[in-house]
């Protein structure tokens, strides 16, 4: 099949950028979407033109590195699918496809379709963990965990940090990403100790990074390649509100002795 692509090209963070049109002949329906871009890039290099920069790594939908808007839909809008898992059999001859990078103040463009998602790492660094230094853990079976809780934690922990939720949200909110981590750790007994501080710290960092608020509209849930549910955002809200009204300042004598 033959396709027409309109791709966002931007040399670097300072460049203003714009859409550029490419015709791609000979697309095979068994190719993955990224393989189609590989083929286009190979031909661009042969013609001496700068290939299109896009992030990708594992190409099996788990590393979270890839991601772009395909016709205005994050990862192409196929249920539970990252761009690298989209195959060309979903397209037909003559299709016109628009490719744009994730757009958010907190995800500045590096080049073309590649963006910088370091803001997500900083949110995790603020509180997305359980403090347990190596070697200090009790036996794995010491605390039984209800299967249902372990499953709910796993549902949320499936987040790959790709940023599709932010890209799809009209407010560029990171609520689903933050909620996924808060829910993952919150469903486990091990995560309960730091629950309040985690909610306070992660929400605060999310705001400092410049992600706007959630309006509960659900675009993120539809875009999420790992089917994270809107419910996780309610959990953030619950934990945060509770923490905001119950958390006390650190005791001034803490750590002394």
């Amino acid at each position, binding site marked *: 099949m033959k396709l027409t692509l309109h791709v966002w090209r931007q040399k670097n963070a300072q460049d203003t950028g714009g859409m550029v049109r490419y015709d791609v002949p000979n697309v095979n329906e068994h190719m993955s979407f990224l393989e189609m871009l*590989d083929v286009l890039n190979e031909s661009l290099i042969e013609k001496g033109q700068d290939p299109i920069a896009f992030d990708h790594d594992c190409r099996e939908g788990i590393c*979270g590195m890839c991601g772009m808007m395909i016709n205005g839909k994050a990862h192409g809008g196929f249920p539970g699918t990252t761009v690298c898992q989209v195959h060309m059999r979903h397209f037909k001859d003559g299709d016109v496809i628009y490719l744009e990078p994730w757009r958010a103040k907190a995800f500045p463009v590096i080049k073309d379709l590649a963006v*910088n998602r370091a803001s997500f790492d900083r949110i995790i660094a603020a509180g997305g963990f359980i403090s347990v230094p190596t*070697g200090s*853990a009790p036996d794995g079976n010491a605390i039984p965990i209800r299967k249902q809780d372990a499953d709910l934690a796993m549902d949320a922990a499936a987040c790959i940090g790709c940023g599709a939720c932010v890209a799809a949200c009209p407010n560029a909110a990171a609520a689903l990403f933050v909620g996924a981590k808060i829910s993952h750790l919150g469903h486990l007994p091990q995560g309960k100790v730091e629950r309040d501080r985690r909610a306070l710290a992660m929400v605060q960092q999310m705001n400092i990074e410049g992600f706007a608020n959630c309006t509960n509209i659900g675009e993120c849930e539809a875009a999420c390649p790992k089917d994270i549910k809107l419910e996780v955002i309610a959990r953030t809200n619950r934990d945060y509100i509770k923490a905001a009204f119950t958390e006390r300042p650190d005791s001034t004598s803490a750590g002394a002795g």
Partner: protein
Amino acid sequence: MELISNAPTGPIEQSWDKHKFDLKLINPANKRKYNIIVVGSGLAGGAAAASLGELGYNVQCFCYQDSPRRAHSIAAQGGINAAKNYHNDGDSIYRLFYDTVKGGDFRSREANVYRLAQVSVNIIDQCVAQGVPFAREYGGLLDNRSFGGAQVSRTFYARGQTGQQLLLGAYQALERQIGLGAVKMHPRMDMLDLIVVDGQARGIVTRSLYDGKIEVHMADAVILATGGYANVFYLSTNAKGCNATAIWRAYKRGALFANPCFTQIHPTCIPVAGEYQSKLTLMSESLRNDGRIWVPKQPGDKRAPGSIPESERDYYLERRYPSFGNLVPRDIASRAAKAECDAGRGVGETGLGVYLDLADSIQRLGKRTIAERYGNLIEMYERITGEDPYKVPMRIYPASHYVMGGLWVDYNLMSTIPGLFVLGEANFSDHGANRLGASALMQGLADGYFIIPYAIGDYLATAKPAQVAVDAPAAKEAVANATAITKKLLNANGNRTVDSFHRELGKIVWDNCGMARNEAGLKKALAQIPALREDFWKNVRVLGANEEFNQSLERAGRVADFFELAELMCLDALDRRESCGGHFREEYQTPEGEALRDDANYSYVAAWEYQGQDRAPALTKEPLTFNYVKPSQRSYK
């Protein structure tokens, strides 16, 4: 060069504890005076960086991805082994040790493997405490499944995303240390060279993938946890960015490279679909718990699988290996699939595939249970192939997946360059000639969480590295070297893309140094690779400049190193005139077609030393002795 393994002697059950006690310590207040570089942020690197940060060292961690959370450990699906014996089925540390040495076809160091089995139990505890949502039973306790090469259920798992969950555990611990300022993270950085001062590893040269800036980072010790080199085959289950550059440049600075020809071909991957194929996707080995592998009995049978009656199917693994059946180790399963396809019984358009059939299990356990166990794998398969495994059997074929070979390290995980430690898949240490399923995650975390924190203290306390300036001559020389390679790639200005060279190289290596090797093929490859490499440096086309986000340039540097590594692989494979584990030399096999080891002549680790660009590398042998698990013909019949 003489290789000293530093493996403790005496009763193996006590050797690690005794060794730990003998290791020197660094006073807590002094730890912050030491700088440690960790390259790679996967299970091994991430766990090491986090643990060392917790101890109080100044850690700098580097990765090529945009976040440490994306390291390729994340793609491991099936599980992690641990000798917990929670299921009362006869497991023990000794049995895990025994299975691993035997599974590795008696080409690993016993003391290392015993230690691995020992700390495996701590890993599970650590991960549970970090919030890794392992699968649980209704009673709230941890669930297990079985994996290839073992007759006990010792594999812990988190759906089909175990690697992801373990990595997120390590990543979160690492981010915590980053937040506390103990670790400085450098994402999107390639390590281009190792800086060796007075014989000690003292730093690295990096290139920022954002803007091409080349920088020197100095430290008191350098840890490489950069994963394996399976991408030498071009098509592999590794992530596209996985590369050997860090370990290769370390090799060229004097670290010995051990057993490069020991590569693992994973039996259950989705078959290749076409020329444009950019990577292969693995379907977890755990599927073999509930999937039966078969081919039509009649060669060239092109009927749809559903219309082939039971009597005309050959469940060849169950037939050939009745006691392990579909759960034979990976090397055996892969070769058996190749043998069936070579005999014309392969399925699918290309004939390079066998069926993995879930039908019986679906009937026995119900679709729901199967979906609960493998749901995400089945979805992934369907997305890629457009076929529904609940209705038609999956088609699978072996693919390059993991490498047992890597930089040589002693019992303390230190390479032949003092101060250069190598962890995880990047070293050669624990898996011998074949790795058992669910053991890679175990090794990566064992190295990172529980071994390096002890080993590094001993090194620093003993070696007492002196102050070295950032502009030391060795650093300047390394920068000049890295810059020159980059320049040369940009200036070649030829007419072929990097990927086209990589594809061609991969085909040579796969055809001649893949699932089966022979002398003629290896010699042919050893002639073809240098010729192609020469062509690469003349005719590669890398556009753009160094001072920008330049993905072609990143790839070009990595492929350049794969050329040299491929040659060493073939050389090692040629030199090892026996079959063992993943290394199958067609000349050396039993009448039934199983690998035929030669313990009298080849019971050693082959460690190769770089001698210069145009000189053959020198081989040093570390002899292997087996005091506990006596080498025998591996039998899974």
